[in-house]
């Protein structure tokens, strides 16, 4: 009778043997009780492992892990899970000079960078500020609400509780529209506070499909300015 090595028996248990090798093991098994005992332990081990790890599947995935993999920030509620929220800026950037770069590119960078900073292992909840592009900054500085230019639209103006001038805007792009909220800091730099990116079909979309919730939430405690009131905050130069 051919000697069956432990690795060959293991391969048989794992369904890796075929043809003559498989027949050889099966012939040996018919005659060797010890070999059958070893094989039964292999099967028992597979069954125990399968059972143990199957149970893991039955425990819900932690929300914080799923939260990181949704479109928005980990802190947002399920209702808001289609947006990216950036906290008020702890970092001051110098004001960008006018450049021909498209707003979309800078906003995208802000979005992606924001996700990465958000995922940093450091101080949780501490996020870097992202300035808007020069194009948008200029528009937010000068244009009245309702103004559209270059595919972007300034939607409305607000003052937060400490009097910071903030403006909501939209960026109409192929395949969807992005909404954002930007606030002008003491240095006159527009920092991005909220951005709602376009979502792919497989993303976590709320049933309503509403992606504007965070803008509304973010401005809920702010005072909305009328067209005439906002003129006081717009630059005339």
């Amino acid at each position, binding site marked *: 009778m051919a000697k069956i090595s432990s690795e060959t028996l293991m391969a048989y248990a794992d369904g890796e043997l075929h043809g003559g090798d498989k027949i050889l093991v099966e012939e040996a098994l018919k005659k060797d009780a010890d070999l059958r005992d070893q094989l039964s332990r292999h099967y028992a081990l597979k069954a125990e492992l*399968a059972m143990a790890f199957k149970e893991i599947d039955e425990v819900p995935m932690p929300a914080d892990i799923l939260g990181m993999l949704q479109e928005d920030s980990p802190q947002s509620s399920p209702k808001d899970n289609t947006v990216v929220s950036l906290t008020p800026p702890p970092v001051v950037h110098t004001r960008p000079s006018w450049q021909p770069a498209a707003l*979309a590119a800078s906003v995208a960078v802000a979005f992606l960078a924001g996700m*990465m900073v958000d995922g940093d292992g450091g101080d949780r909840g501490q996020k870097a500020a992202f300035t808007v592009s020069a194009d948008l900054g200029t528009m937010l500085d000068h244009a009245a609400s309702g103004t559209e230019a270059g595919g972007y639209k300034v939607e409305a103006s607000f003052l937060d509780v400490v009097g910071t001038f903030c403006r909501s805007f939209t960026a109409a792009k192929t395949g969807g529209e992005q909404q954002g909220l930007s606030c002008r800091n003491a240095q006159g730099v527009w920092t991005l506070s909220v951005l709602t990116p376009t979502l792919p079909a497989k993303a976590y979309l709320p049933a309503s499909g509403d992606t504007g919730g965070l803008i509304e939430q973010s401005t809920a405690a702010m005072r909305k300015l009328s067209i005439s009131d906002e003129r006081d905050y717009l630059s005339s130069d």
Partner: protein
Amino acid sequence: MLDNLGAKMASFKNDIVEILPMLRKFAVSLTGNLSDGDDLLHDAVERAIMRCETFDSGRKLECWMFSIIKNLWIDGIRTKTRRGTTVEYTDRDTNLSIDGREITEQKLMTQKVLKAMSELPTTQNQVTFQVLIEGKSYKETALELNMPIGTVMSNLSRARKALIEKLY
């Protein structure tokens, strides 16, 4: 541009979500319990998002994620205090049986199995996970772990021997 980058990130995240249960099990196989496994998985997902631009789309995402998990584990980057109070796996109601004694026995066995898995050397653990838990062939495992089939078999054989000795 915004659409492209946003869609790329969203697609990357969605791809991770699809393999998340498998990644979780791998993390647990290394740590030996669910709460530490979830911490490890959390760190791995966080790192993957941070470094998504370095992911080679020609590579299999699960292999990349396995590497991140394994490296984090080896490096000892685990934050056990992050979640505060955690409920140990063996305390959870798995609803596998209506018989209390049977549940207890199964929980103890599960705890024993996970602990035994976590005590394997990392390479043996990884091979065992791929073959015995994910049901992959030796050839697939060899390709994914970038090692010869003979090495897969020898690692698997040693792992099996160790597990059988510990469990039976």
